[in-house]
């Protein structure tokens, strides 16, 4: 567990300035604002490396453990860099009973990657997520902000194919 990158000075200063401005304009309790700040930080940096989490902890006067606890609790937050397209497969009860696990496996097979790891070409990160609240469309897959409903195993190849060239569908 050695060599964790905790050096804050290696973070992009221009992006940190934007994050600082965002934090400065927040009102209320630091602990309550933590999730908003993390959302913002991830939007700016793409993911939440350890040094960025530590930066947020210091900016909000919270412990590093507290921030890391929140980041690792929510599947929306990524500690590792993600691909250009984040493919999220809903594993909520409705999606699960309609075969989301098989859809997930098929997606992983076609892209040739593991869950939560960026694909070698840098295009995809595939995740399983908790219920996203679209049970009527089960099983549901989201790719970045786009939602695909009633996805069957047979649809996966075409769906992923649309993103494979690197230009979004």
């Amino acid at each position, binding site marked *: *567990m050695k060599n*964790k990158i905790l050096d804050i000075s290696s973070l992009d200063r221009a992006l940190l300035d934007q994050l600082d401005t965002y934090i400065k304009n927040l009102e209320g309790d630091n602990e309550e604002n933590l999730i908003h700040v993390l959302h913002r930080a991830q939007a700016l940096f793409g993911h939440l490396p350890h040094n960025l*989490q530590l930066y947020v902890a210091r900016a909000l006067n919270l*412990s*590093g*453990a507290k921030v*890391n*606890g929140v980041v690792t*609790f929510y599947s929306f937050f990524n500690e590792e860099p993600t691909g250009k397209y984040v493919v999220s497969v809903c594993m909520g009860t409705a999606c699960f009973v309609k075969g989301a696990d098989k859809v997930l496996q098929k997606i992983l097979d076609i892209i040739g990657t593991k869950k939560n790891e960026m694909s070698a070409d840098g295009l995809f990160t595939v995740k399983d997520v908790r219920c996203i609240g679209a049970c009527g469309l089960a099983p549901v897959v989201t790719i970045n902000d786009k939602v695909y409903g009633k996805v069957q195993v047979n649809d996966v190849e075409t769906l992923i194919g649309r993103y494979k060239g690197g230009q979004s569908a």
Partner: protein
Amino acid sequence: MKLIEKMIRCSINGITLDVEAGTTILQAAKKVGVDVPTLCHLDLHDIGIANQSANCRVCLVEDEKRHQLVPACAEKVVEGMAVQTDSLKAVMARRTSLELLLSNHPQDCLTCIKNLDCELQTLAHDMNIKEIHYPGEKMNHPLDLTSKGISKDSNKCIMCRRCITMCDEVQTVGILSPLKRGFDVVVATAFHLDMDQTSCTYCGQCVSVCPTAALAEMNDTPKVWRALNHPEKHVVVQIAPAVRVALAEEFGFPPGEISTGKIVAALKRLRFDTVVDTNFGADLTVIEEAHELVDRMENGGRLPMLTSCCPAWVQFIEHQFPELLDVPSSCKSPQQMVGTLIKSYYAEKRAIDPKKIVSVSVMPCLAKKAEAARDEFHQNGLRDVDYVITTRELARMIKEAAIDFKTLQEQPFDELLSDSTGAAAIFGTTGGVLEAAARTAYEMMTGKELKEVDFTAIRGLEGVREATIPMGERSLRIGIAHELGNARKLLEAIRDGKSHFDLIEIMACPGGCIGGGGQPYHHGRLDVIKARQEALYRLDATLPKRKSHQNEEVIQLYDVFLEKPGSHKAHQLLHTTYSAKTRI
């Protein structure tokens, strides 16, 4: 506007009673003498802290009207509630909860450091668990043995979160948090850093409350046995003030038993070559510290001055307030002063090569293990203190050697580094270091004899206490804090220029060293800590000399070795420096 509290009527196992709003079922049950097993629950109401995470589920009881199982520790009583703590449904549900907790718990109880001192084990015994019906998936977390003070085995964690309550709320250090979710949850440091890479102070309060061995002291007894068995080594041991009023608890004595003579006898039976007293170092600390204080007060130095005996507190200020490192006294702690003198003064006097000396200390504290290993504390390549064992570890060694502690004949300390006064005895309690320093500073500053040595106004267990002590023409404004959360408040005031104190004493643990992380487990009973505190004041009152500067051996040490308080040699041997560390 204060609303008149309405009493709530409820019944526990058919016994009707009225309780105040906000009372939990557990508290109500206690009032009528009904016992409910608990595990994650920890109510330290004396210091205003309760861990009520309600996630172990071993306190489930049945709410008869709702036909529901509820956790007694967290569920509040409502009007007309009827609770059965011993219904079959409740008893079976509690058993299931416990079996589930045990299903992924390691079963190495025989060799576990908490064997026979484990709350999970006790509960498994009390609840007649003879078989676990749920062979579950086991956790497989790496052990963390990187720090000198605390060992961490997350596989033994039951997610009670008591450690987090202590570290976050009481100590405001916050190095632990639950990471991840579901079965993968682990109570860990930020980013799974090794303990020694974090801002842990090693105060050990997490260890004090951990119901299992997920957090425990680093076991240094094998190293001490090895030193004792080494034919060439001369092993010198010192014992801290708070150890003598706690160790006997491990042998069935009531809390507050003073057993100094028996401890010395036991150490001799264990074949330590010489037994010296950390209290000697405490008296010496007072002289050096009072000298430093008077110097700072008279020559416009940095005020307030903060005492520096508590190593957890030193870690805390280095990590959390690196901009304030000019406020702590530069004095080493009594442990380190005695350690230094063992390998210099003692070695010289006894004509023993310091290389052959092994310096061991018995401390109520886990941070002392880390303190002894600090870069600052060595001379000519030799550590001032080689090994530190806790009160609990010494008790284990005594048991291992089959020494009958109860019947031991009391023995005195050996001759060198062992004289001490009442002022040194109270070093083990919150307020004690400051009271001891005040007794000496008064006479230093006024040149008059202090008639009334008991500063009762600054005693007690309040988290923060303050007073003004008249010292001739001027007065000494003092502040006392124990628990690091309280220390943080005083430090923030200093940082913001709002502090009006001259001298502040800080101890990291509840009650001071008597409540240290290496003491016999109090299992949530803070009256144990009170009894230890009373014992220290009793000890002080019975000693013929109660001011550190009356310690004749200390006076002699200055005459023949150190020259005078604050001398160049005293600075070389008895003072230290601090360095800013990163907060994580």
